[in-house]
């Protein structure tokens, strides 16, 4: 729980024809993290085509399902096999066929809708033209000198089209607008029609279909428009039938396609880097937790009956940064994991801060917000909202419980300090003592983080940094020596000299190490050494003093309650009750929120930043199922 799980580098070599089954088996195994294959002899990527076909098929299937609706829950049989490349390509071909048909229907629906809106505009135009004494037949004559176009174009293009057409002696007159489309008449010399054709196409001009009847007998045009509408409705109906037919006709086969693509997913995902091969041989590479190796061997034996070769080895020094970190947590610790992961993932072999984080976070929250009543409200609210917020709500339940515990120590219930007898004392009764305890906690906390960082560096093989650096053992020696020296100065201890000697030795070692590590010439090295050593000393103490906020917030909690009581006492009975309820609500929401953030801040900045890089690789196993 305090360290990432030991991992082994794994290569499984097998027949190329069985690669998809091996990937499926590893996905069922559930703890295989694919990683780039380092076997130089296997230079080919035999699963690249498989992945390509799978990606295409998956994209088509998801579009079809979006169009036709999902085909229900997916159950993967335990003995189902992954499709071979040929099967996958055939499935992909079929999906392409069906999706192309669907797409054609979809396009057709859009075109019908656009044609309908054009008919509406044409009808309006017809109504306007009926009142004018215009001989359209004459104007639209194909052999006249004047070429007349009636149509639409985007409103944004009108100005530029008008300017461009003016260069060819054409005139543009708008007569209507529907949404972003402007309807216009373009008139110009027929001899220059060829010049404007490309321009109009480029501008997205759409010619309105003007029936012959409109040219001669406007009344007859109405019948034509009506006939067109009926035709559109019929076309649209046919389209809808086709779509519904697709659903009914292909529903079961689409479900089957979903199943087969889910079975093909493991190899398609592993293919990205971890599958290499040559000729009829393929290797799947990745990481497996050491404690699962015997299960893996048993699985491979059962499935491949010895037709494989498994190579397992410990990670070597140069690849530690690539090893994924897998952590196991008990159920009660799980709700705290997102808060740790929001900072980062521990590197392989590093100390996992989840457990101390959970304890220290709750402790700090309770110490800053200790009140039986307020804690109970937080606990009940978190429990009530548990279903909505999931596991993270249990952090609230635990924080509420710890707040109640500290409430018992402080003797505070909704700010009233006379209701119960404190097991310890109210912070306000001895603020100096509370501040001292907070700083002492800070000293312990910083010392712990320095110790953890020393361990992390040692584990990573950086022995010199672990022992000599400012965040290593030498830094810890300086810190404890200086704390002891200061404590002797203020009279808490009486052993000043040994502590100051310890601090001097610590800082001298750190300075020596900084000097050794600093790049550049002598002047630059002096500057770097001085500044970095000084920065270490200052930051260690400022970070320790930062824990005084724990005491400050516990005092603040009492002070806020006093403020609420002062306001309430100045009011009548009803006003008093309202002020108490409102005041306590503000304390719970506002101060509770601030304290929750402050506790998190202390953990992240005074704790994690000292030993936790958070740039590890998360263990992402190959899994079965849909995306």
């Amino acid at each position, binding site marked *: 729980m305090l360290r990432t799980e030991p991992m082994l580098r794994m290569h499984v070599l097998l027949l190329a024809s069985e690669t998809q089954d091996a990937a499926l088996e590893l996905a069922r195994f559930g703890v295989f993290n694919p990683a*780039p294959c380092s076997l130089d002899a296997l230079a080919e990527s035999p699963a*690249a085509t498989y*992945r*390509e076909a799978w*990606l*295409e098929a998956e*994209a*088509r299937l998801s579009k079809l399902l979006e169009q036709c609706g999902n085909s229900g829950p997916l159950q993967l049989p335990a003995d189902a096999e992954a499709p071979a490349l040929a099967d996958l390509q055939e499935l992909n071909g079929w999906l*392409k066929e069906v*999706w*192309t048909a669907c*797409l054609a229907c979809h*396009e057709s629906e859009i075109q019908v809708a656009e044609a309908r809106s054009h008919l509406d505009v044409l009808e309006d135009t017809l109504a306007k033209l009926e009142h004018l004494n215009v001989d359209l037949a004459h104007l639209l004559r194909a052999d006249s000198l004047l070429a007349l176009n009636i149509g639409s174009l*985007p409103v*944004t*293009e009108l100005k*530029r*089209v008008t*300017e*461009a*057409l003016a*260069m*060819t002696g054409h005139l543009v007159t708008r007569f209507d607008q529907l949404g972003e489309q402007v309807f216009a008449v373009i008139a110009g010399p027929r001899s220059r029609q*060829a*010049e*404007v054709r*490309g*321009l*109009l*196409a*480029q*501008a*997205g*001009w*759409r010619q309105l279909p003007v029936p012959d009847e409109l040219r001669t007998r406007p009344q007859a045009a109405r019948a034509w428009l009506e006939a067109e509408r009926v035709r559109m409705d019929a076309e649209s109906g046919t389209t809808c039938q086709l779509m519904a037919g697709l659903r009914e006709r292909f529903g079961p086969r689409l479900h089957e396609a979903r199943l087969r693509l889910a079975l093909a997913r493991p190899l398609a995902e592993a293919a990205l880097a971890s599958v290499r091969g040559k000729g009829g041989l393929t290797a799947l590479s990745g990481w497996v937790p050491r404690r699962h190796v015997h299960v893996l061997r048993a699985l491979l034996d059962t499935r491949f009956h010895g037709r494989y070769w498994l190579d397992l080895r410990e990670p070597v020094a140069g690849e530690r940064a690539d090893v994924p970190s897998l952590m196991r947590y008990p159920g009660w610790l799980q709700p705290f994991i997102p808060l740790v992961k929001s900072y980062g993932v521990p590197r392989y072999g590093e100390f996992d801060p989840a457990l101390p984080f959970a304890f220290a976070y709750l402790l700090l929250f309770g110490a800053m917000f200790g009140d039986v009543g307020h804690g109970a409200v937080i606990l009940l609210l978190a429990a009530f909202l548990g279903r909505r917020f999931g596991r993270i709500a249990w952090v609230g339940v635990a924080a509420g419980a710890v707040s109640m515990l500290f409430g018992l120590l402080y003797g505070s219930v909704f700010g009233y300090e006379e209701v119960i007898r404190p097991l310890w004392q109210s912070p306000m009764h001895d603020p100096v003592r509370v501040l001292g305890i907070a700083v002492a906690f800070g000293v312990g906390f910083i010392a712990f983080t320095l110790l953890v960082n020393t361990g992390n560096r040692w584990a990573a093989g950086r022995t010199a940094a672990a022992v000599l650096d400012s965040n290593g053992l030498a830094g810890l020696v300086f810190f404890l020596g200086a704390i002891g020296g200061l404590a002797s100065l203020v009279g808490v201890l009486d052993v000043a000299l040994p502590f100051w000697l310890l601090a001097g030795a610590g800082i001298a070692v750190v300075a020596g190490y900084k000097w050794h590590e600093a790049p550049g010439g002598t002047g630059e090295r002096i500057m770097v050494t001085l500044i970095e050593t000084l920065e270490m000393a200052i930051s260690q103490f400022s970070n320790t003093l930062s824990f005084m906020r724990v005491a400050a917030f516990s005092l603040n909690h009492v002070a806020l309650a006093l403020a609420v009581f002062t306001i309430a006492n100045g009011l009548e009975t009803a006003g008093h009750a309202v002020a108490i309820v409102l005041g306590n609500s503000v304390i719970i929401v506002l101060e509770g929120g601030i304290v929750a953030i402050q506790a998190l801040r202390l953990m992240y900045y005074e704790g994690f930043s000292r030993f936790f890089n958070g740039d590890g690789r998360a263990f992402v196993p190959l899994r079965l199922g849909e995306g």
Partner: protein
Amino acid sequence: MSAYLDTRVSLYASRLWQDVALDALVAAPDAEIAGALMQRGLPQLAAGFVNPADRQNARSLEQRIIAEVLDETRVLIRPLSGDARSFLTFWTARFEISNVKTLLRSKMTGERPAAVLARLTPMGSFGRLDIQNLAHAEDVGELLRRLEAGPYADIVRHARRAFEQSHDPFSLDAALDHAYYEGLALRAKPLEDTVGAPFHTLMARLIDRINLVWLLRYRFNYKLPPAQVYYLLIGSRYSLPSARLQELAALDSLQAVLAALPRVWRTPLSGAVDIPGVFARMERLAASEAQKVLRSRAPAIARAFAYLILRERDLRALRAVLRGRHLGLAAGDIRQALQRVPEAA
């Protein structure tokens, strides 16, 4: 914020390549190239040069160059907000529009999604498109509809309509380019008002150059009619306004167009006999203006934009050098392709 950006731009400015340094790179031994690239803050190009067959990071030279530009733009954008941030973000969008064009062409030629995905430029945090999804569109129609539902709807909408009318790949490309630069000019307007002359000059040089080169190309390479050529140009408020562009589009030879240009352009363009020559001269002029802005005490956003213009010009030259060396071309041929040597001479 402006102090931060000013300092950052000044630090970056020292990474720009002088013509002499580029010339030296043409003939430098292979062992010195990576070091020279690193010294100019180009780690990805250096890595690509040292290990061109890196399996884990198999990016093309073009992709690495754009990645360098995007990395620097990301740093410059950090302190910006409002119009300035929106402008520089949109300035990077032309790489994504280029991805859109690649995707559209791949659908026209029936290229496999995996192949086209490998050719697209990784946009990192500037990426706004779901390229996996788009690459798996079945045809141009589906791709355009999907694009129209995305962040570049304004740019794509008109292009789709134009393509539906003509089914001509040229109209699609031209519509996308046109809409992009119209959008850029629109986003530049508030900055020209607030930042003033330095920014206005940079935009003027950019838009005028694009308009003139497009005009020459559409008119004399593609033989489009004047009205269509004019329609395809960017609505300009700079030294080549609409009325002047209409006049120029109506002329029937490159020399006639050059002779009819405003005086500010005529002298620098004298002697140009073809469109690449015009482009090179105009780019040199724009670079010289950008250098002036960069060295001046202009507002930080103008200096940042000037730096990015110059950096991209440098990187285009570097591409010529590195590609030329990779192909084993003679130093003289690479220098000719650079088009920066005569300036130094």
